[in-house]
């Protein structure tokens, strides 16, 4: 109970910080909208002409993937704000209070989830202007999946931020991790198009399952093995990274 109250307190504080600088929330949404406008039209003739694409039109293929991309990129860079708070003594100040270390992490992650779900809704609405058609329940399930992805990546980002403690180190580290994850996830083009070895490699990437699940949800296959597997993988990864994140907040040098 106390921990929940503490999560709420840390969440509110972080949320107020984000709302005071809403420009970052806007910038975060610009990238997927650019993909939507500048990459979506490119995909349209390809989807129609190329065998191997999952069913559905270009936007049913692209938008669910962009949601995952938003979840990965948006939350992955959350750690930068924590480095700044580490440097100004905020983290240390809070660690001397009796507040639960879980709350220190999850309060912040919840802020990232809320920001991300709002961005996801905006992105979906814009996509509908472009002609996206998807069942509402499918979209809702897709957004839940994105929320779980956001918990997983933001917790990992906070853990890495507290370990390296410098923006100069965190940037390259995150890029080194996110580029292979992105390429092997099937976000840009479905992995069903990939040669066998690349497809096999993509199966090692948990986000690939999430992307598959998102696409299935947008097809309306809400109750399906693909969605179930994607959700299970996302929850599993989130559990691991949250445990890691809480541990770094416990660590004495954090």
């Amino acid at each position, binding site marked *: 109970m*106390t921990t929940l109250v*503490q999560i709420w*307190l840390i969440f*509110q*504080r972080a949320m*107020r*910080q984000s709302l*005071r*600088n809403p420009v970052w929330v806007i910038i975060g949404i610009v990238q997927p909208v650019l993909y939507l406008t500048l990459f979506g039209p490119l995909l349209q003739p390809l989807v129609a002409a190329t065998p191997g694409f999952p069913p559905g039109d270009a936007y049913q293929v692209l938008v669910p993937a962009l949601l995952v991309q938003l979840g990965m990129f948006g939350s992955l860079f959350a750690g930068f704000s924590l480095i*700044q*708070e580490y*440097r*100004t*003594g*905020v983290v*240390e*100040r*809070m*660690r*001397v*209070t*009796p*507040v639960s270390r879980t709350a220190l992490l999850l309060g912040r992650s919840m802020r990232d989830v809320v920001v991300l779900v709002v961005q996801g809704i905006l992105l979906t609405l814009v996509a509908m202007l472009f002609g996206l058609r998807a069942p509402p329940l499918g979209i809702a399930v897709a957004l839940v999946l994105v929320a779980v992805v956001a918990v997983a990546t933001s917790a990992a980002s906070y853990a890495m931020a507290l370990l390296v403690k410098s923006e100069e180190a965190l940037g390259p580290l995150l890029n080194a991790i996110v580029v292979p994850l992105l390429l092997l996830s099937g976000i840009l083009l479905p992995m069903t198009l990939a040669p066998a070895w690349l497809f096999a490699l993509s199966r090692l990437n948990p986000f690939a399952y999430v992307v598959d699940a998102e696409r299935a949800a947008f097809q309306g296959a809400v109750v399906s093995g693909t969605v179930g597997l994607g959700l299970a993988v996302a929850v599993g990864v989130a559990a691991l990274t949250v445990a890691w994140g809480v541990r770094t907040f416990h660590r*004495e*040098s954090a």
Partner: protein
Amino acid sequence: MIEARGLARTFRTRRGAVVAVAGVDIDVAPGELVGFLGPNGAGKTTTLRMLTTLLRPTAGSATVAGHDLATDPAGVRRKIGYVGQSGGAGTDCLVGEELVVQARLYGIPAAEAHRRAAELVERLDLTGTERRVVRTLSGGQRRRLDIAMGLVHVPRLLFLDEPSTGLDPQSRANLWEHIRSLHAEHGTTLFLTTHYLDEADALCDRILVIDQGRIVAEGTPDALKRRVSGDLVLVGSGEPERVAAIAERLGQVSELVVAERSARFRVPDGAAVLPGLLRELDGAGIAMTSVEVRRPSLDDVFLTLTGRTLRDAEQKVSA
């Protein structure tokens, strides 16, 4: 309030183990204002971080505010306040909100948290800043906010790490006033680290001098100064050799130095020997340009205790 025995911390680095604190004993009674004085790198902050549960000691034990550091760190955290070197208020948060959140992190209900925040804002001369973003505060206001944050839960023991570093002289004097009144009016036990001698001298009832991870001396500022062999007497004169010859006859004179236009020496009680000295110099027809008695400073104390001045000790660390 604090009872530490053999508290030590060794850091592992790539070049091997580095001893930051080599086993210190610290006793602080309730209501004391104790200073932890030493050059940068002497182990002050490491000790403070151990006492505030931020760093686990590699040896030794301590009871802080009635709770054992090793077995009940959560109990320690509930009872102490801590104001770190880099502050702790979120730079893009509002002053009032940070105070309320800090109080609520200690489990204080919302209404009471607001009441305490308002009270602390007033007490620390921050009235009118509640709706301001922390980043826009002056250095002195920022520091007072940090202290207010450390006081939201009315701790009986407050730790301050280098409280006046980076402040201009006026803000510094103002901060000292606040620290004094905190101690005098509210009876808060204070434990502060500083590498400024004047700060330790001006604020503290008692000083622990730390150098290279060990406590090398402890006592009131006056008692520490008495450990230096007396006051410095400076006589400006065109005939310093003759001044020195007369001074030598005073008895208990040490460190007699003859410079070009002055002579200086130490005696146990400078003020008491001065009248006699002046009479003799005058009787001998020696013209004087100035006379000065200087009480020993803590810099002299540090020099006597460690063979180095504080400044030398710091240069060695930064080199």
